[in-house]
């Protein structure tokens, strides 16, 4: 059965490659910044510990960003691949379903009514998550009302609810003071700068556990490639799988948006790239999407904070522009390749 080993061997090599790239991205992110540290020095600084200024920079500023980058990049990308699997539509991403709209609305609400000044800094992520959760809840209830899940209804509901949420946010922005407006826009643009370390750990734990949990749905996802009815014919309880996967993907995106703001494109482009590289088997797509999303966001963050140093660009700008261009290049390459193949 050399063919079998061939497939699994290829996957193992690819995973090792991605892990190496992730290590590289982490080291790059730790060493580059206002104060450049040598690759080799990082380990020495960490071992020496505590007192030095380099240690403080690493442990208080750079490491948290790297961890959050891994957590959010992985979560958004995993969320994207799960949703694309459920909807069998490569254009669906976490934000299509109104999750970012809901989170933004929640945050805008909190800022406009001054809740963050009254209660504390954790209010913004909480409001973001609350908004996202509300949207997920509405979409879920509307589209599963009849007992059976209708995927098309679910998608349309998500898109429509998304419009309502973002329009409501526009409404809030139109009537509020310019100071609040600035706060809202700043939050929407997204950043990996999160002062609260425990929030970072929670996000990281959630996104890694979701990755592990998602592997329990590898069979339904693989069977759903053939369509809902044919997956049922293969003995898969598609209704249950679709509901749970939708919830898992939405919560992942909701948490990401709540902590890091609206970082677009990761959930769309990374799953696409993984499909181009690895095909359609979710056994490899889930983990590779997670790792690549993490790499992509960590590297994007390095670019965002170095390109106009000492100032920082919003990371969403980098993921959008760099990701979009890379994606166009990939697509044109693929069409060239498939032309060659069909000859």
């Amino acid at each position: 059965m050399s063919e079998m080993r061939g497939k699994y061997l290829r996957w193992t090599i690819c995973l090792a490659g991605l892990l190496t790239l992730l290590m590289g991205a982490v080291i790059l992110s730790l060493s580059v910044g206002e104060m450049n540290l040598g690759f080799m020095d990082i380990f020495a600084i960490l071992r020496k510990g505590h007192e030095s200024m380099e240690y403080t920079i690493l442990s208080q500023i750079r490491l948290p960003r790297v961890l959050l980058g891994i957590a959010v990049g992985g979560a958004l990308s995993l969320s994207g691949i799960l949703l694309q699997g459920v909807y069998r539509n490569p254009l669906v991403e976490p934000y299509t379903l109104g999750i970012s709209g809901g989170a933004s609305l929640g945050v805008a609400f909190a800022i406009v009514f001054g809740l963050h000044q009254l209660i504390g800094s954790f209010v913004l992520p909480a409001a973001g998550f609350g908004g996202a959760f509300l949207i997920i809840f509405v979409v879920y209830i509307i589209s599963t009302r009849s007992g059976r899940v209708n995927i098309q209804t679910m998608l349309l509901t998500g898109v429509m609810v998304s419009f309502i949420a973002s329009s409501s946010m526009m409404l809030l922005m139109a009537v509020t003071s310019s100071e609040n407006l600035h706060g809202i826009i700043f939050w929407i643009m997204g950043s990996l700068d999160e002062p609260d370390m425990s929030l970072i750990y929670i996000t990281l734990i959630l996104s890694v556990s979701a990755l592990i949990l998602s592997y329990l749905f590898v069979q339904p996802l693989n069977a759903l490639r053939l369509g809902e009815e044919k997956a049922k014919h293969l003995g898969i309880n598609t209704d249950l799988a679709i509901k749970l996967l939708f919830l898992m993907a939405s919560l992942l995106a909701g948490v990401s948006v709540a902590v890091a703001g609206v970082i677009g494109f990761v959930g769309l482009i990374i799953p696409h790239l993984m499909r181009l590289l690895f095909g359609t088997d979710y056994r490899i797509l889930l983990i590779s999407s997670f790792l690549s999303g993490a790499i992509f966001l960590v590297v994007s963050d390095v670019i965002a904070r170095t390109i106009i140093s000492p100032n920082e660009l919003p990371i969403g700008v980098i993921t959008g522009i760099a990701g979009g261009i890379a994606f166009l290049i990939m697509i044109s390459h693929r069409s060239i390749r498939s032309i060659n193949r069909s000859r």
Partner: protein
Amino acid sequence: MSNILAIQNLSCGYSKFQLSDINFEVPKGSFAGIIGPNGSGKTTLFRAITGILPLKSGQILLSGKNLKSFSLRQRAQNIAIVSQFIEAGDMSVEDYVLMGRIPYHNRFNFFETNEDFEIARKYMELTDTWRFKDQLMSELSGGEQQLAGIARALTQQPELLLLDEPTSHLDITHQVHILNVLQQLNQETGLSVLMVIHDLNLASEYCDRLILVNQGRIHTQGTPEEVLTFQHIEDVYQTVVVTQNNPLSGKPALFLASGKVLREIQERLANSQKS
């Protein structure tokens, strides 16, 4: 002889179309066909048997046991379904066929075993699709995809194979090839086959039992000789046909007459009556 499938007093359907009083049996090891005009309820019946459409009343027995008492996984281990169109897209033929092993895997079986690969290979060779195994499904022709679909269904190692118009969009080479593969399996392994089929002559040639469906009810059932009489066909299809036996197999075969020919015959009859 025991029945692999028995449908008893089944009724089901949609708000505008109902199937009712459906009763028929498929003996173990038989090769049965469901025939009928467009919109007669063939596909609705098929969807009821495959469990996609809930029943309003009646029951479906699989080897004497109510189909409801089977879990989805158990159903998939006993009944394999080949749909009319196979949309497997960008996956290799081998990966597609291996999906037939899903009903035998639990959540934690992430990798196919050697046994899975061997079973898949066996049925790919049997359906002559082994040579395409590394090609993408989307690169195959319609007939080749249908064969891969059959290989995938056989990889489920079912007791009963259900097919929805397996030959409807294929040329005669592929039609006959696919039906021959099914016939051979039916003869050699005793696999029971039930297919929805449009082409009455193919149905007559290959099936040992036919169920003629019309307007949501069963019109006639029995052997091809019993079902495919010109009275039944003209009644159900509202079309003039002539039946004769196929000189090779002796099975009934249908001939159609064009409007022009029919008019000429009528004129000739009228003339002969005048004179």
